[in-house]
């Protein structure tokens, strides 16, 4: 296929098809509309399922149904829409069903605006649904990386029987880049979905049930323990991050997604000024790359967390840092994307941005 120029949201849709998606259920919301628009045409043309639901609440429950039935299923939405899906996401996680949820973040809280933002880090990594559960969350920084993540997301979801979220912002969704859909991605050894609720004829001798209800306290505790074991396995195996210029940095930036893209430019400008700045770029936000922080050389003068929010990933940065280095935070939010110069300035005035 070679490289083609493509808009982020459409690339997400095509990458999902390449990743083997069988069904899409979704509801319109800016800035992700090109995802369902593209899929509405291409899924139906290819004999796959596309349904525009009556709400995000319905969408995620359609996803629950189809995931239980054993097919590769996804939805896509943006911040307020993802908020509405939290109930369903919790049930899907509780019933241990695989699916892919794309979240194209916009400004908040409330209706906020439709500009790019990263204010849903908590929503993605802490979850707004009830109970002890985790999603595997990827936060790619480019359209190419988004494609690569999307293509393997269904495998990852199936492998762990867990929802996977692909978290980007409106900038990645709306911009165009030259991308390659044929880059190889990791394939996993997947077992048959013998748990699927697809009719007893497909699994003679047993009745399959998709369920998150366990009324006995000890029974539910056992279920939660099993979930915890799975989450521990994910923490062990699925940490994904990039270390940039981390040999001997004066400062270390921690940023993800679009923000990491901007920080790359800032790092180049700082180098010209004689300031060496490295970057830890989490590609998976959950599980969080805590161990990357152990690799920061002790000569580093401080960590600067940069986000398009008021400081949400900052919590994980501070937890991972364990008090070793001074930590500073620089953020623009509500749809404002910082210029590289602002980040250069923030590093040069590190003390001013220090947080306790």
């Amino acid at each position: 296929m070679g490289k083609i120029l493509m808009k982020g949201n459409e690339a997400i849709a095509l990458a999902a098809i390449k990743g083997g998606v069988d069904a899409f259920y979704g509801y319109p919301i800016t800035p992700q509309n090109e995802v369902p628009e593209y899929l509405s045409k291409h899924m139906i043309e290819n004999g796959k399922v596309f349904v525009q639901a009556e709400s995000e609440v319905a969408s995620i429950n359609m996803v629950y149904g189809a995931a239980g039935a054993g097919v590769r299923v996804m939805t896509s939405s943006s911040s307020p829409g993802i908020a509405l899906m939290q109930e369903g996401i919790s049930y899907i996680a509780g019933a241990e069903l695989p699916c892919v949820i794309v979240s194209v973040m916009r400004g908040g809280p409330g209706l906020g605006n439709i500009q790019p933002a990263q204010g849903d880090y908590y929503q993605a990594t802490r979850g707004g649904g009830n109970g002890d559960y985790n999603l595997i969350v990827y936060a790619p920084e480019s359209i190419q990386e988004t494609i690569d993540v999307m293509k393997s997301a269904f495998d990852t979801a199936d492998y762990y029987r867990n929802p996977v979220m692909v978290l980007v912002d409106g900038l990645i969704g709306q911009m165009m880049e030259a991308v390659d859909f044929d880059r190889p991605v990791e394939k996993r050894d997947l077992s048959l979905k013998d748990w699927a609720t697809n009719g007893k004829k497909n699994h003679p001798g047993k009745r399959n049930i998709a369920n998150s209800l366990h009324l006995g306290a000890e029974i539910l505790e056992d279920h939660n323990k099993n979930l915890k074991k799975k989450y521990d396995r994910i923490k062990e195996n699925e940490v994904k991050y990039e270390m940039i210029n981390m040999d001997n940095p004066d400062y270390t930036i921690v940023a993800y997604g679009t923000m990491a893209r901007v920080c790359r430019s800032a790092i180049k400008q700082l180098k010209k000024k004689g300031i060496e700045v490295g970057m830890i770029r989490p590609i998976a936000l959950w599980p969080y790359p805590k161990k990357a922080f152990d690799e920061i050389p002790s000569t580093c003068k401080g960590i600067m967390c940069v986000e398009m929010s008021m400081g949400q990933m900052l919590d994980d940065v501070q937890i991972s840092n364990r008090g070793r280095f001074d930590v500073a935070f620089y953020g623009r939010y509500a749809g404002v994307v910082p210029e590289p110069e602002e980040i250069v300035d923030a590093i040069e005035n590190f003390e001013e941005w220090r947080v306790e």
Partner: protein
Amino acid sequence: MKVKYKKTKGLTDKPLSYCPGCTHGIAHKLVGETLEELDMLDDAIGIASVGCSVFAYQFFNCDMQQAPHGRACAEATGIKRVLPDNTVFTYQGDGDLASIGIAETIHAANRGENITVIFINNAIYGMTGGQMAPTTLIGQKTTTSQSGRDAKSQGYPIHISEMLSTIEGSAYIERVSLHDPKHVIKAKKAIKKAFTYQKEKRGFTLIEVLSSCPVNWGMKPIDALKWVEENMVEQYPLGVYKDKEANNG
């Protein structure tokens, strides 16, 4: 020795969790028998809802999913679209379907989703202890309408079958009652018809089943059945509200 009657294969051996005198058990039996008689047990996927029937996944002898409150029709849509040749049904109460899940229900009907909905209308929230439902009759006392439902502040009993019959995607809508054996037999016929329509891929089918809730109504089981007959049937007239075949040929 000739076997005259035996338990349907459509239900598991799990003892039902319903209160004595409640008609959920009869409704379960009718659905179970239907699935068995139409040879659907091996391809059916049922959706249990939230309310007294939350444990329905333990009772129907087919694959089951347990849905969040009100979302059964969305979940059924998700399944049916990817498994169009399987039988998909939901079993929902009036709190679940007519209150929190009314949007999912109407839109599933409007899309003509080829699913069957068993809608149990007992005019009250059973599982949570007898609160007012959208189907509660005017003047009916519940734990959240202690002086009786007052239309001025609490609205009117909602008529699901009448409403859904106006929707193009509905193929078969009938309201039945379980208050006496004659009506139980009629209810069985209606349920069987709905599942048959699904098999024939005609569209959305819903059977509204008037049921009793003796515990939360504060009545003896027989008095509760009498109350269904004398009060609920008046408010919710029985009959076929939509039959696409009969209407449109």
